[in-house]
């Protein structure tokens, strides 16, 4: 049986499934089964549900029933305390609609968002979603309630023409709307200049949010192994250029790498974890990377 650690789910196969919920299930169920085989430490809130009583703990939270049954003292945490509050910021701008080999970045990111949300909701964490392009367009607050996942999927499935990306403004608005400290997952291609958003990002981090940046990129964006000599039109601005990829490739790579470095720097400076997700990378791998790299710490401290 293939495990999540060695063979991922081919994004082409996964995205051929029309139902977004089913896609999320496929990824997450596979992930669960993989998790049993490779114990991961500290990636889940579940491990801190009970804790050995130590002197000075509030006796109100002592699990008396457990004490009576096993003669051991355990402190029971409140659900509210234990739950992770997560807000997914989803880039719905036009540049996300690009896809060189049949899989658009938007579709990939959508599945990723749904999968992550499903995963968290399975753990009884609360998940919210915000769609943005030039500003925040749709906002679903993070709640724990029946049907939240459906609402989330409906929002993700919403067709939108999108606009130009203004990540800075979106982050600013997200900071304004999320007063409680949460895990904020930014799903975007981060193609705009870091100068336009690093200030807002700094504010978000300063507000106590655990911000993770998941940069969804098409493989063609990475190496420009795509297209032919023609008029190239920018998806967002509509600018047209005559491009011969064979001639422009080396300069592009240089320029793009410089940009990536700048993005990396801008994120690192603010302590934001940066993950690159090319659209040909299996989604479960991305999810594992996301979870494995750093424990999710978006919860509010007691």
């Amino acid at each position, binding site marked *: 049986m293939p495990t999540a650690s060695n063979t991922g789910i081919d994004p082409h196969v996964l995205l051929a499934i029309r139902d977004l919920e089913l896609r999320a299930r496929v990824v997450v169920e596979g992930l669960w089964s993989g998790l049993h085989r490779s114990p991961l430490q500290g990636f889940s809130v579940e491990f801190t549900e009970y804790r050995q009583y130590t002197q000075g703990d509030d006796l109100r939270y002592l699990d008396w029933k457990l004490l009576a049954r096993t003669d051991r003292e355990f402190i029971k945490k409140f659900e509210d305390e234990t739950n992770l509050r997560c807000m997914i910021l989803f880039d719905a701008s*036009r*540049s*996300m*609609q*690009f896809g060189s080999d049949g899989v658009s*970045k938007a579709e990939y990111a959508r599945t990723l968002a749904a999968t992550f949300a499903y995963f968290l909701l399975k753990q009884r964490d609360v998940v919210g979603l915000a769609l943005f392009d030039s500003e925040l367009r749709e906002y679903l607050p993070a709640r724990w309630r029946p049907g939240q996942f459906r609402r989330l999927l409906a929002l993700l499935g919403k067709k939108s023409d999108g606009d130009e990306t203004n990540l800075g403004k979106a982050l600013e608005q997200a900071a304004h709307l999320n007063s409680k400290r949460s895990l904020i997952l930014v799903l975007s*291609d981060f*193609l705009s200049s870091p100068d336009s958003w690093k200030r807002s990002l700094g504010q978000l981090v300063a507000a106590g949010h655990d911000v993770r940046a998941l940069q969804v990129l*098409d493989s063609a*964006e990475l190496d420009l192994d795509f*297209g*032919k*000599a*023609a*008029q*190239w*039109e*920018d*998806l*967002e*601005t509509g*600018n*047209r*250029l*005559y*491009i*011969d990829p064979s*001639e*422009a490739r080396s*300069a*592009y790579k240089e*320029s*793009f790498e410089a*940009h990536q470095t700048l993005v990396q720097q801008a994120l690192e400076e603010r302590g934001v974890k940066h993950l690159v997700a090319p659209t040909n990378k299996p989604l479960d791998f991305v999810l594992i990377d996301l979870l494995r790299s750093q424990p999710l710490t978006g919860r509010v401290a007691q």
Partner: protein
Amino acid sequence: MNVLSPWFLAGAALIVGPILFHLIKRATKDRIRFSATQFLKESPPKLQRKSHIQNPWLLLLRCFIIALLAFAFARPFLDSNIPITPSVSPPNALVIVLDTSASMRREGAWQTAIQRTIDQIENLESQDRLSIISASNTARPLISFDRWKEWPPNERTTLTANLLNALEPSWQSTRLDEALGLALAELEQLTDNSETDANKRILVVSDFQKSSKIAGIAGRKWPKDSILELASIQGAQPGNTGLRWLGWTGDESAKRSMRIGIQSSGQLEATEHTLSLFDARSGIALSEPITVYSSPGDDRMLLLDIPKDAEGPFKVELTGDAEPFDNTLFVTQEAPRSISLNYYGLEENADNPKQAAFYLKRATAGWSDPLVTFDISSKSTNLPIPSSNVIVIDSELDRASAEAVRSRIESGSNALMLISDPSRIESLGTLLNETDWSTSASDRDDSRLGSIDFQHPAFVLFADPRFSDFSRIRFWHTFAANYPDETIASVIASYDDGAPALIEATLGEGTLTAWVGDWAPQKSQWALSTKFVPWLQRLFEQAVGGPDQPNMAEMDEVATILASNQSQWKAIETNAFSNANPTEPGLYRLQTNRAERWVALNTPIEESEWDTHPIEDWEKLGTPLDNPFAKPETTDTDESDSRFENSIELESQQQLWRWMIIAVAAMLAIESLIAKRLQTRKDGIAA
């Protein structure tokens, strides 16, 4: 080579289109959408690529197609020195309706009308067809299409002109609708002869008086593509005054006057007219002339006193009016015709309501024409025979009386015998000089008139189905008459069992009529029926020459009312009678049957009307009007016009544009093939 519509050549400028498309096609077609163009640097454009024309041969083909199309639209033709073949346009079929009514006698009108007509004829080509119809009260074809065709082409104009020059306007009124009906029938005939492509034209040459009748052409079916042209003729005088007969005023004993109507129309030059009365035979003025003032549109009445001893006929003349044709009015007055009715029967019968004579007397009492004198005379045979009398026999006749009556009938009297009793049948036999007349008893309850000869003058009045119902009149007879196999008498009416009811026999110059049955109310309902008096009057009118006829009539009525087969006419100034109907107004002695009297014939008063039909009247009637009141034609066309017409003719003969359009279609097919092949090749390379 020349072109007919050079402005279409401007369409060749559309060649620019394909050239542009071929230049910019590659630059615009392939487009790739990319998300991160900000990291891209534009590749240096290759200079020769921009000005490079894709598929130059295809471009050339496309340009040629557009140019050829523009050239075809310009309608080119080859100039040639070959003269244009004579016009192959369809022949003209022209029907000229020439107004010959009395109003065309106005000064200058007739000459103009004839000239107009001749002008039209001179313009006709040898293959054209002509028909001329004269229009007055009756329409008459002067020349038919067939007759025109029979004439040698070079003599047609002369022959027609001679015919027209010999023609004169009549004295009748105008009925243009009838003439137009005849004209349409003439055109229909053309259709029958499969000359359907001829240009059908009806030209009406008339003064278009308002009084002329045109309503009859409403709803007429006009042949396809036919045209109606109206050529209006005007006389020299702008206004006219005419005389109209209105009737007599006063009776025999008192002073008698004529009522004369004076009708003016148009613009009168002189408003003062005088009216004079003359004795027509002697020409002596009978009274002082009367001065009349009239203004246009007037229709006034004037009383003209007649001297007591004057008997007529008279002539009333209007002076001071410029148009003389309608200025004389002929007037005559005849005393009513009188009939002396000799009654052979008992005198007291006339006052006994159970006797036929009672009804006979009362039925004839109120007649004004003929004026009946009921004479219950003795049966004397020595009475002088009145000029026109009627004998009514209401008794048995002895042989001597019968002989006397017979001789009176033979010398011109009309007799009516009432066989109310079987015993009288013998008298009838004696009168007819036939012995086998008899009666037989009849046991029928009642009988009705079974068959009637409605052609008989006494019954012709009831010929109309509205009046021909005699079935409600019942008779109760105890006998029926039987006539011999050979008899000079004929049965006019018979009862429903076949027995004769009314018998008529001509004896010498007179007529004997016998009624089998009794008129008394207890024996029949006949004398009390509404049909009795009219029937009796018609029967007695026969004795004085038939139904009453007017003494004064308009020229239109000569043929319809006055004339019959026996009519003999004698104009006042001539001595001999003639069979021919008069064609001019005037006073005539008219002899019909046995009566002779004065008849005055006048010009129809409508012909004095000068106002004309507005053009809307013609439009309302649904006529295919071409040009209202045609102006004189301009025959001169300038040179450029004729050259242009030649060009059109040449172009329509050559029709080069058709071949060009075919060539364009073929080249378009080739172009499509080439373009498709190029496309598939390119796609193949791309794949």
